[in-house]
């Protein structure tokens, strides 16, 4: 009897291969049965309560107004197009937010490293205040601040071109006309030349030990070429916003609506506090010997940061910063609370007529796709900085 259940003298219930298979089988059955239970319950409820389901609604006209969009949108457009417009709104907020938050975060992080006590502590207070309070409260606060700006007629105006009032923020924006592609090509050429020049100068600097200002020179070359091309081809006209009509409604230019401005300010200030801490920790993670060596070689504190500690710290800084970018993108969904038509907010409006389950699935898949994009960037970076050899 015992012989039957033994393999090479080991009873079956102690055989590692069998144990592994049994464990996996049991867990798979458990997970699958839970999922199946949910599925059965959900489908029964869907039938019993006659809840609409499916994706056929996507091609119908949405009949839902969206306050501001990147691409032209009309309520008679389809649900699918409306969701795309909303997703692009999310992308717009995230991209702008990521750029501004990175800049501010690095600035504040460097301030946290400053030997100037006042600057250091001011940055500390900023970081502790903004990191430790809910983003939602901050967004509501900024929205309130934007709403309490003067009305359109009495709003702030600079040079008759930049408007700030409680309906939003308006600034001139270039519009491409004929010759835009020529200008773009010329600028690209200029940048290419600048990169080659920078490399050459950098090599000379490394060889001779004398400053040749490679980055400054390259930037000058690129800017000069681009400006000359701009004058030659005149590829763009400036769309200047102007107040029109009896109510002073502002037309033209780049328009950042009130809720978008509040969202952007809130996201940037919140995320920058986190990025600042990452930058500080990253720079401080560089060995003390590096700093001492740099200072005794005669580099100033700022030069040490610029040429020694910051570049080495980047290895530690970038991965968590990318995850902060992802957080910012996900946090932009809080726009729903202040009325900016991002993906979540538009989708939740649509649930009043369209099937909620399908909409939620679409929204979640979109965010998953965005987060996968960020992970991809992060993985590519990690591969590129791996110690070679």
């Amino acid at each position: 009897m015992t012989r039957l259940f033994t393999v090479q003298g080991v009873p079956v219930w102690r055989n590692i291969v069998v144990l592994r298979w049994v464990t996996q089988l049991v867990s798979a059955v458990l997970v699958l049965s839970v999922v199946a239970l949910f599925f059965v319950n959900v489908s029964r409820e869907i039938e019993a309560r006659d809840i609409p389901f499916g994706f056929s609604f996507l091609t119908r006209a949405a009949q839902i107004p969206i306050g501001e969009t990147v691409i032209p949108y009309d309520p008679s457009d389809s649900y699918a197009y409306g969701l795309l417009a909303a997703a692009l709104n999310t992308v717009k907020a995230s991209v702008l937010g990521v750029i501004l938050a990175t800049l501010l975060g690095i600035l504040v992080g460097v301030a946290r490293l400053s030997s100037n006590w006042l600057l250091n502590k001011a940055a500390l207070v900023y970081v502790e205040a903004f990191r430790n309070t809910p983003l939602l409260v901050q967004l509501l606060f900024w929205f309130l601040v934007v709403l309490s700006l003067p009305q359109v007629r009495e709003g702030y105006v600079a040079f008759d071109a930049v408007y700030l009032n409680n309906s939003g923020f308006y600034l001139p924006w270039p519009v491409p006309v004929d010759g835009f592609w020529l200008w773009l090509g010329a600028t690209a050429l200029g940048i290419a030349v600048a990169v080659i020049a920078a490399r050459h100068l950098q090599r000379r600097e490394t060889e001779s030990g004398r400053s040749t200002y490679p980055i400054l020179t390259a930037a000058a070359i690129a800017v000069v070429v681009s400006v000359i091309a701009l004058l030659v081809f005149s590829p763009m006209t400036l769309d200047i916003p102007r107040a029109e009509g009896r109510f002073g409604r502002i037309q033209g230019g780049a328009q950042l609506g009130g809720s978008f401005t509040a969202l952007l300010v809130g996201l940037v200030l919140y995320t920058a506090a986190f990025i600042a801490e990452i930058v500080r920790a990253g720079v401080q993670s560089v060995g003390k010997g590096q700093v001492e060596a740099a200072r005794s070689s005669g580099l100033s504190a700022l030069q040490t940061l610029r040429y020694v500690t910051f570049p080495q710290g980047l290895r530690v800084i970038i991965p968590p910063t990318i995850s902060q970018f992802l957080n910012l993108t996900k946090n932009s969904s809080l726009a729903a609370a202040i009325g900016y038509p991002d993906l979540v907010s538009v989708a939740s409006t649509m649930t009043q007529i369209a099937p909620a389950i399908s909409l939620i699935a679409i929204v979640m898949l979109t965010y998953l796709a965005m987060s996968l994009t960020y992970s991809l960037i992060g993985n590519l970076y990690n591969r590129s900085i791996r110690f070679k050899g």
Partner: protein
Amino acid sequence: MSAAAPAQAMPPPPPPPAMTVGLVGWLRANLFSSRVNSALTVVLGAVLLWALVSLVGWLLFAADWAVVTTRTPLYLVGLYPAAEYWRPQAALLLVCLLLGVTWGRWGRAARGFALGLGVVLLVVGLLPHGMQPLNRALLLLNTAALGLGYLLTARLTLGRLPVFRRVAAALHARAARLYLRRPNRLPPAAWLTVQASRLLNAGAVGLGYLLTAWLALERRPWVRRAAAMQNALAARLALGRPKRLAALAIVSVIAALLLIRGIEGVPGLTPVNTQDIGGLLLNLLLALFGIVMSMPLGIALALGRRSNLPVVKMVCVGFIELVRGVPLITLLFMSRHILPLTFPANIHVDALYLSAITITLFSSAYMAENVRGGMAAVSEGQVEAARALGLRGWQTTLLVTLPQGLRNIIPAIVGQSISLFKDTSLVFIIGMLDLVEMGRVTIQGNQEFLDNGREVYVFIALVFWVFTFSMSFVSRRIERALGVGRR
């Protein structure tokens, strides 16, 4: 002449060195170390001063705090029935007692938090504003409970309290110096004058003397007797043992929860509608539940992800990445529309439980990634040593890798707890009236408060900040107590 020539050739003596110590030295080193730094200090100082002055001016004069002070219960407990306010109060009393006990047992790690809470309670309890005398008395009772818990467990005599010790030492020194001068040898009138001026100048040194004499309490027989009794009591309660402390904690938290929710059929404890539990109470309940439950779930998910069984691993990775890839707001949205459908039709699940479950699941995915990171940081040698000693796979994980991994990630766990606490403000999506939503409703629902939004949000932000900041403070203390980074 010849003697004068070398003297003329001598260079002029160098200027005395700039002060490098004291206030001036500190200013030079930290604010005016270079021209750029000095300019920065001046400009930034001016800007900050302006900001500070306008902020303080707004806080004290321009802001109208009636929107906060007249509606305090709404922010604290939401729509909780006013007749039952004693229940959250009593729950807070339990928590305070527990905190006091923890402080007595652990000392340093909980002291700052306990003292902070005590001060806040005391200040709120004593501030002049429209609070019912009963509630005010209960609030002050909380402070007493905090102290009682401490006295019950800490084996101490008053004289050993660090604060008392330090003050007593300072006063002793002062008094000793006073004795040494022997001023009573002067003529009586002059002696009086000198003594009076000294009293004034030294800030009532006489009082200090009295205090010193009184504070040398340990020498008094009655104090010694009381201390011995208290010590005996603490020993009898044996709360010093961690297991009993944990049991006490669990029992009192459950009792507090039951008090708040109510029990069916018990007179005086009628169950409260879960929709009515709101305000800060809701945020705290959700955060407590989320933190406590997401910890074991997160550990389980992390172990699953580290497992070498492909099916288990796949399920865990799938769950973690799915949850981490989407905003909490969409998950809450889902919990409102889909989660109710997954339960059998006859079971109705309240929004409170739905949001608690969702927040826990969301947080556990992040916790799992933290735990995994912490375990990956445990050196391979530890595992090899454990295996060489004959520990099995699961024993190695549970007894060696996991404990060390968890110690590695204390800051990450606290960070996750902080962000979970902040995220509880998102439950407005499924119609819960938490602190933030309560503030918004108060502003938008009352004509007279329409312009007081800033006051409300500043107040709410401050409340959140106090909690999150104390969490990170306690975390630093625990880290130090466990010797992270020093071994």
